[in-house]
């Protein structure tokens, strides 16, 4: 249903589309073309959760006409305090479909196409068909995937292959939004070290000297579950499983005189729950959509390129240009390996743990390839079994000084190159 903007409904939007403001770049703004341009923009929203619901509403009320939304999740009761396109009767339904239906019922003059699947299920042609992409995800892995995919798509013979990626994220009263122009500005991977990876508690602390309630919970989930339950896979969404972990952790805590193990904490620790509220999602989603609007219309200059928002103490935003990393493994021009210095007495298994914790690597299940040989490979299981003995060997036995190691993860479309140097 194509509707122009020259109707009473869009009276307010038209004012900024038809009138240039004092801050508008007069060279790039063309009042005669802008409505046509906005009408034809095809935009993809990744995630239909807390940010996604807001993003869809905002785009529909910003005059965007062609929106696709992709999400692989279904609705949970704990989503209802912020994901306002869902009602309790929707619990269990696909988020993408429910969200699209709700928006269509409220704002009929917009086309929204839902995709109930993982972003990795879509091919390059799919991503190529959009003008820009807005990401409202809570997963670092999924963001790295889409970022790398979009960067790899860029072909300078065809400037249309550079798809702006607008990314938002929140945690409690804080959040950030940013605009990524693949191969032109800093990408998601360039700034990965701004996220501090979750500090893992050493297994020996969990096993022998717990001090905190979280230690007891991690002991229950990492050590006791596999010991007692064998091959039964833990499902952190199964209340029975959480209850088992909780009571197991509670017993251990009592044994050591540790206070503070609760059901809520147990759930928080094993699911790595990040507090989330409607208002922060609203701020970040609106910031992302405002940038999408400015990019599509040139009605005002767009964000260059990062905004951090903190609401814990007053309101504080920091807007700055995040610099591209020359040796970024995804968008870097000079594809030099990163030098890593290690001790000669470090075992491969220990080194992998160190790498996982590094801010600029953060892989969950890394596989390592040496010069023409597999050092440790997670998939397929036969290869994992074959390379597992290497974990107990010293890195210095497997890799020569100055040799390169490629680190990859099946969930990411790129690998990191490391050059090993010994102390």
């Amino acid at each position, binding site marked *: 249903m194509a509707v122009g903007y020259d109707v009473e409904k869009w009276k*307010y939007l038209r004012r900024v589309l038809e009138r240039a403001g004092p801050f508008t770049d007069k060279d790039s703004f063309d009042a005669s073309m802008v409505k046509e341009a906005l009408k034809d923009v095809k935009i993809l929203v990744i995630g239909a959760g807390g940010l996604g619901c807001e993003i869809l509403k905002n785009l529909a009320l910003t005059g965007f006409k062609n929106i696709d939304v992709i999400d692989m999740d279904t609705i949970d009761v704990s989503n*209802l305090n912020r994901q*306002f396109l869902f009602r309790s009767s929707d619990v269990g339904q696909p988020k993408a479909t429910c969200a699209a239906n709700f928006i269509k019922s409220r*704002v009929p003059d917009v086309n929204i196409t839902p995709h109930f699947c993982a972003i990795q299920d879509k091919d390059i042609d799919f991503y190529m068909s959009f003008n820009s992409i807005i990401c409202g995800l809570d997963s670092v892995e999924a963001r790295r995937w889409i970022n790398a995919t979009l960067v790899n798509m860029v072909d300078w013979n065809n400037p249309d292959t550079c798809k702006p990626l607008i990314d938002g994220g929140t945690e409690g*009263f804080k959040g950030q939004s940013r605009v990524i122009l693949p191969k032109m500005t800093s990408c998601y991977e360039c700034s990965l070290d701004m996220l501090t990876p979750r500090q893992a508690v050493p297994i020996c602390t969990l096993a022998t000297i717990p001090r905190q309630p979280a230690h007891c919970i991690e002991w229950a989930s990492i050590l006791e579950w596999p010991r007692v339950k064998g091959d039964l896979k833990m499902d952190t969404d199964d209340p029975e499983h959480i*209850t088992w972990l909780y009571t197991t952790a*509670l017993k251990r805590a009592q044994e050591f005189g*540790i206070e503070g193990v609760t*059901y809520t904490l147990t759930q928080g620790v094993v699911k790595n729950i990040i507090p989330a509220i409607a208002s922060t999602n609203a701020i970040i989603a609106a910031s992302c959509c405002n940038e999408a609007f400015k990019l599509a219309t040139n009605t005002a200059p767009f964000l260059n390129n990062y905004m951090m928002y903190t*609401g814990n103490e007053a309101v504080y935003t920091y807007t700055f240009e995040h610099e591209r990393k020359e040796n970024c493994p995804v968008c870097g021009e000079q594809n030099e390996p990163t030098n890593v210095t290690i001790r000669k007495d470090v075992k491969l298994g220990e080194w992998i743990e160190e790498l996982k914790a590094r801010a600029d690597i953060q892989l969950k299940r890394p596989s390592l390839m040496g010069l023409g040989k597999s050092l440790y490979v997670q998939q397929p299981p036969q290869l994992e079994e074959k390379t597992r003995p290497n974990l107990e060997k010293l890195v210095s036995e497997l890799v020569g000084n100055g040799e390169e190691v490629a680190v990859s993860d099946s969930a990411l479309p790129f690998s990191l190159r490391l050059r090993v140097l010994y102390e």
Partner: protein
Amino acid sequence: MADPEAVIADPSLSGHAAVSLPSAKEKKYDRQLRLWGSSGQEALENAHIALINVSAVGTETLKNLVLPGIGHFTVIDSGRVEEADLGVNFFVTADSVGRSRAEAVSELLGELNPDSEGTYINAAPSDLLESSPETFSKFTHFLISSPVSTSFLFNLQSRFPNTPLFFLYSLGFVSSLRISVPELTVVETHPESTVDLRLLNPWPELSQLMEERTKGLDTMSEKEHGHVPYVLLLLYYLKEWKTQYGTYPSNYKEKSAFKDLLRNGMRTDVAGGSEENFDEAYAAVMNHVKKTEISSSLKEIFKDQKCEQLGAESSDFWIIARAVRDFYNENSELPMSGTLPDMKAESKDYITLQKTYRRKAQEDLDKVEASVQKHLASVGRDASAIPRSTIETFTKHTNYVKLIRFRTLEQEYKVDDTHAATVKRQIAFDEGMDESLIYLTIALKGYQKFIDDRLASSSTSLHPGETDESIEADTEDVLKNAKHYLALLAQKTGETRDPTAEEVVPQLVVDWVGEIVRSGGGELHNISSMMGGIAAQEIIKIITHQYIPSNNTILVDGIKSKTAVFEL
């Protein structure tokens, strides 16, 4: 958050035999309870906010309050839903065009959460304030969206001076929020950390624990040595340092030398080449080897007249603050928070140390509680009127509690001396950088005056820039108002200038006026939605008395994607 959905009885669990599971409500609100807890949630459920004038920014703010479960809201507006509302407000539909705007939005907002009760009054707020001011007394918070007359704002605030008030503008790419609360006290400010280790003034029990656990440090087994909690290591070496130099390390140089002392104590002939507990001690020197200074905000509270003179009308906050001040005057230190960070240690050692800190905190709390009871009795209240848990929340946060007295709208809009000085100072501060959003506040003053003039006249158009034809003349008018305001600022700050000289308007004021007129009073949904999120955060902080709100004006610049806060 009582009535747990289920309990598990597990005979092998000693003490608390029953294990409580989260209730349905706790499940639904799980992600926010992790931020403000059940006490914050209860405060939210007891609030009744009034939205005065329907706008997108107003309904977006309400959306973000209804979703987390605000108890009640009432929408007051006399207008009808217009076609143009459909393009900017998510809480109207094509079917609602022509219906009461207050009714239509309250219906769709109410649908968001069955826990939140919404209602509406189809009346003009200013008429309602004249005809039945008592209507407003049931509201705990006022959320007002522009356009309203300045006199309405003054009237509302002077009749209900104790009701927190939030006033919103959303005009094209810009938005602002003015907050006014006569007195806001926040105990649970959620600082990054409340750790106070008392390393330079350990109490006897802690010193004794240190002596016991560090006895024969040099001859300890590798395991024992590597597991002495770093707090005890620091106490041990501080004692050694003091024996040698007579005082504790205080400046950077001394602390660096003290770190060397620690480094010399660490064993390096162990696996990995260093001991983790020593590494932790080393890392804690700069931050934790110091005497706790009272924060400036606590000093202000101690000095406050309300702390000095308690009476029957004193709030619990002030009675506890006074008891804490008594404690401080008597002991020359604040009551302990009792928080201990995690550290490399054997379970038993850590728990013993933790208990030592907690016991001291409880002893301090006993003293504060006794003092609270004494003060309660002296003002004629029941000595047990304030629960121990409330006092404990205070003593856990003593150095981080906050008092904010917001300025009234009259103080700002009538340009008192403080306001004039603040704006002048901000302008001077920005000289040459041309970045500050203070210029936007000046443009908004010009806009408000324009609205006041239009409301007072019988003109059919209210906003500057409603039609293309009026842009030029309206811009002139708003600029003239801004100039008038600037002249007033100059006069108040005693600036001497040639009275006949043309008032020079900074270019950024001209630009912001241009941007405001461009919008013709219209909202952009994204900007209203962003401010709706910011306003809801601030309102939640003020309702829950948790976290620290902005004092007192927040500006959003949707062009440069930035915000600023000024105390106007």
